[in-house]
Each structure stands twice: as structure tokens, then as C-alpha cells.
């Protein structure tokens, strides 16, 4: 299993997570085909792609929500199977899902600590509330009260709660699925700051976003998915049009058409 394939990118830290040939099928539909992905410590990897490119499916595979149909996953050099969300969390892969996965009937504190409550047989509400406030402060979050049910919060506030929750366990990797989609200008900047802070602490960050500006602002590597396959790895210096071309799959068409036109022009000469 442990094929020490040399990574093609200059690693900032040691590799945390390695995916090789991961595929996921839903019945006849291949949501992911033969995906390779490396996530290193202290590095932000952006996953971009069009709708239906398989970004969210890939995140769910890494979060243990879906099991891959084929391929291998290596975590800290050990081959692993992520067969439940609990296991992924335990290993240190925290996820902020696109649908946030919050319990609307519970308050903010209960949601933050869900599944990881302090003192399981006599909940330490005071300590949990203090830690909740501290964490939300660090994120410059504007949550009016942590004792209100999630149902009473706005979309942006819920997003913040979800991000705060993923950071609670000090994970090795944090995956953010469209974290800035519902946020205001200041909160988006806060989340980007936060991503950098998390990276500087040596965590790996996986960021999914449709917003190229956000992606280029923080990503060390930009991995493009198209129709469930790898479609190139770029850096923040890559031009916007190149990225868009890779995402939409227009490259081959445009490039081939150009080349064909050039060749046509050159032939008569």
C-alpha cells in the first residue's frame, strides 16, 4: 500500500493525507473517478470545479460520510478506512459541510460540543459556555447569545457556528465546503484570516469555493475537478482565465481550435 510516490509539489510540511485512485459510484453514476489528492501540513488546498464536479462528494468521502468504491486513503503514512464520521473526527479530519449539519432544536453551545461534550455523565455547562464564547470571540463572531436555539440565528451566524465547531477539537485537517457563500464582506475576510491562522498553526486546510478571488487569496495549491476527475493542479499565480478554462473544460476546445486555426494559416505559406 505505502507507495512512496514522490509528490510533484514542493511540500511545506509532511504529508498528512494522500488519496490515490479514489472512485465513488452512486449506482450507474460515477461521482468520482480515479482521484489523486495530497494534503500537507501547513498548506491550503483549494478544490474548485463546476457544479457536479464531485467536490462535495470528495469532501464527504474524506469526512467518512460516504465510503469510496475504489482507491486508497493514507493518513499520516498509514493506510486507513474512513467508515464513519466519528472515525474521521477522531483521526483529526474536521469538516464544515455545505448544509452546515447543525441541530436547529439545540442551542449554540450544545451544537458546538455535540458528540464531544465535557464530562459525559454530568455535563459541564459553565465550562462549555466559556469555551464557546472564547472560540467565537477568536473568530470575531457576532453571535448575540449562545443559549438561543440555532433556529433563531441568521445564515451567516450559523456558518460561523459550524466553523467554530470544526475547530473545537484542534483537528489536523479542516475541510470547508463553501464556507464564505453565505457570509458578509467582513465575515468573509474573517474566515479567510482564520484559514491562514489555522494553516500557520500547521494544520492542513481544504477549501471548496466558487469564489476565485477567495481561493486565490489563501490557497497554496488549487486542485481542479471536472466531471469527477482530476483536471490539473494550479497555484495562486495562475491566471483567472486559465483556471476558468480548466474548470469548465473549455481548454481542449479553445486550444485545439486555436491550434487548428494557426495550422490552417501556416499551411498555405
Amino acid at each position, binding site marked *: 500500500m505505502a507507495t512512496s510516490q514522490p509528490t510533484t509539489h514542493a511540500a511545506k510540511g509532511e504529508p498528512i493525507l494522500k488519496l490515490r485512485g479514489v472512485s465513488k459510484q452512486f449506482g450507474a453514476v460515477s461521482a468520482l473517478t480515479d482521484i489523486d489528492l495530497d494534503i500537507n501540513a501547513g498548506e491550503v488546498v483549494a478544490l474548485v470545479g463546476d457544479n457536479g464536479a464531485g467536490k462535495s462528494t470528495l469532501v464527504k468521502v474524506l469526512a467518512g460520510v460516504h465510503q469510496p468504491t475504489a482507491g486508497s486513503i493514507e493518513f499520516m503514512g498509514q493506510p486507513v478506512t474512513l467508515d464513519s464520521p466519528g472515525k474521521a473526527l477522531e483521526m483529526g479530519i474536521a469538516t464544515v459541510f455545505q448544509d452546515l449539519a447543525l441541530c436547529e432544536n439545540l442551542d449554540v453551545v450544545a451544537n458546538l460540543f455535540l458528540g464531544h461534550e465535557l464530562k*459525559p455523565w454530568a*455535563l459541564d455547562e459553565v465550562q462549555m459556555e466559556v469555551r464557546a464564547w472564547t472560540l467565537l470571540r477568536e473568530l470575531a463572531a457576532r453571535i448575540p447569545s449562545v443559549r438561543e436555539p440555532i433556529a433563531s440565528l441568521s445564515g451567516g451566524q450559523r456558518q460561523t457556528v459550524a466553523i467554530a465547531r470544526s475547530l473545537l477539537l484542534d483537528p489536523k485537517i479542516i475541510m470547508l465546503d463553501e464556507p464564505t457563500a453565505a457570509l458578509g464582506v467582513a465575515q468573509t475576510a474573517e474566515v479567510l484570516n482564520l484559514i491562514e491562522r489555522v494553516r500557520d498553526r500547521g494544520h492542513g486546510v481544504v477549501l471548496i469555493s466558487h469564489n476565485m478571488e477567495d481561493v486565490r487569496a489563501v490557497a497554496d495549491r488549487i486542485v481542479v475537478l471536472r466531471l469527477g476527475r482530476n483536471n490539473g493542479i494550479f497555484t495562486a499565480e495562475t491566471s483567472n482565465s486559465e483556471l476558468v478554462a480548466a474548470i469548465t473544460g473549455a481548454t481542449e476546445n479553445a486550444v485545439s481550435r486555436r491550434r487548428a486555426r494557426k495550422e490552417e494559416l501556416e499551411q498555405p505559406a
Partner: protein
Amino acid sequence: MSDPNKPAALDRSDSRVRHDEGIGGAIRAFVDRVRSGDLGMLPVAVGLVLISAVFASLNPVFLAPNNLVNLLFDAAAVGCISLGIVCVLILGEIDLSVGSMSGLASALIGVLWANMGLPVAVAILAALAAGAVMGMIYATLLNRFGMPSFVSTLSGLLALLGMQLYILGPTGSINLSYNSALVKFGQILIMPHWLSLLLAILPGVVMVVNGLSVMRRRAAANLSSPGLSVLLAKAGLLTAALLIAVVYLNQGRGVPYMFGLFVLLVVVMNYLLTRTKWGRSMFAVGGNREAARRSGINVNRIRMSAFMLCSSLAALGGVLASARLATASQQAGTGDVNLNAIAAAVIGGTSLFGGRGSAWSALLGILVIQAISNGLTLLNLSSSLRYMITGAVLAIAVIVDSLARQSRASHGRG
């Protein structure tokens, strides 16, 4: 208190939130909650007062101390069953077979203890174990095959009833000895007055001691507290209400031990639901199962625990019912037992839609149900009318639950 130099409490830094302080604030917060559809115990309290007033005016015997003592004796068995129903309702599931389960449990008591002569403790344990196994089966059907609990427990209702008739055999009913401890517990054992008075004071004392310690810890952590006056007022009201009730009951026979056991179970269940990780997980699974699963909660195990608890409590209810009636018969657990247990939980404020509820709803709900049943019996009304009225009360309770849910949604309270 309001030292301007002191930094704002950790949870008081947002100026948009109104902070209710003192007794006035507590009352205002309560009114706000009710208006937004977070009714809590309010409907059941109002219902209990209304029902008592109506029945007392129709027949003064209703409020006589000894009638109320009887009412408490009767409430314990179905109350236990209802407590189990609360567990599965919080998950958004249902168990329709609790009546049959209680009937089977009482049949087991009759056969194992009265007929075969096994020790009573062994018979009770066997009944509880049968309940646990049945709950395990329901949970497995749900977890493994995705069989809705509505269907699995409906088939369980019939299967368990069949098993009850089978083990009772052709005789159909087994009488339990009136001299046995179990039947005495179910019919005559009453707490000494000093003990019942002590137990009436205890909750208030625990509330104050616990509240003070929480306040101290919150202050140390720079968090705000609702204030001493609110705590003392709540504890005082509770103690006064309990003392009046107990003193009044002591005018008659007193507080039954069997009812004490039921209240103890409610208190333990309340602790488990509100103060433990298991309870938190229960509400999370009921509120958003997928979110709970992604938080690392083992949803299958939570379901397993809830169904096992529900069926075991139903079995315990059956044991108490057989003790109350001093018989294990084919009629045990049939009729309105099922509906009464479910109605009690819903009337008490546990939502049929999952994610909301409390152990107290079993206690308050069963008092309402039992008051109706007792009052109608006193009026010499036939059981046909009793069924119709109980059915209507359940319908009203579900309508209130539904309306409150819509109101909560529009007020952003989940």
C-alpha cells in the same frame, strides 16, 4: 452589582440582546417564550386546573384526599409506560406496542411468580429483560432494515398480545396473593407522613444548593446569572406547591410508595436527558439525525438505547399494573393503556415530531389523563364515553403541539 469598572460579562457584550434580570425579567422572558410557541408545561398546567375545576363542581368527591391518593396509585403504572414513550418520541419515533408489552410483563409475573413459584424478583427481572429484548428487536429492525417504528411496533402490538394470551393459557387470568409484598406495594403501602413532608422539601433545597453553586461557578467564569431572587422565588413556589399537595394528601391515606417510585424514575430520566451526553445525543438525533451522525454520534446505538428503555419501562409499568390489580389477566395492557401512555407524553409537552420533550411531561401528562379517567368514573359514565373523551383530549393535545411547532418555526425557535 452594577460596577461600571467591571468588564461586561462574557455573555453580555452584545448590545442587541435584551438581558432579563430579576423576577420581572424572568416573567417577561417566560411570556416571550410562550408567545413564540415555546409552550413547555403551560398547556398541561392549565388543563389540569380546568379539569379539576370541572370535575370538582360535578362531584365534590373528586377532590377528596383519598380519591386523589387513589388517583396517584392508578397513575404510577401508565406513567412509567409514558416515561418510556417520551424517550422514543424525542427521537421522532413511536412505540405503539407498549400496552401489549405491559400486558405480557404482567402475564410473566403471574406465570413465573404465582404459578411456578419463582422468587418475585426473578419474575420482575424476567419481565424487564423481555422488555429490553423487544426494544432491541424494534431498534434492530429500524437500524438494519429501515423499518419504520410505526410499522414494527404495530406488528409488535399484535405479536406481544398473542404471546400474552399464549403464556396465560386457557385459564386466562392469574390472581396474585394479597399478602405478598408486590401487591401491598401496589395497593396499600403509603409513605409515613414525615417522609413525604421531607421529600416535598427536598427538591426546593436541592434547587437552591445547586443553583447557588452554578451561580458561583458562572460568576467565577465571568458569565451572567439570572440572579438570586429568581432562584429563590422558583424554589419557594415549588416547595410551597409540593408541601400543600403533600399535606393535603396526608389528610387522607398519604403519598403512595408506588407513586414515589414513578417520580423517582422521572427525576432520574430528567437528569439523564438534560445533564448527560446521552441525553444531548437523544435530542440531537431527534432534531437532525444526519447532523448528529456527522458529529460522530452513533445514531444506531442511541436508537437502541431509547427503544430498549421504552420497552423496559413499559414492562415495569405492566408489573406495577399487575401489583395494582392483584391479577395478571388477558385484559392487562389492552384497551386504552396504549393511547393513554402516548397521550400523556404528548399532553405533557413532548413533541410527536421529535427533538423536543422532557421527562416531566410523563408525570404531568399522566396526571391529566388519570384525572379525566377518574373523574368520569366518579360520574358513573361508561367506558365508551371515557374512550371518546380521552381520544378528543389527545387530539386537542396534538393540535396544540402542531400549532406551537408552526409558531416556533415562524419565531425562529426551531
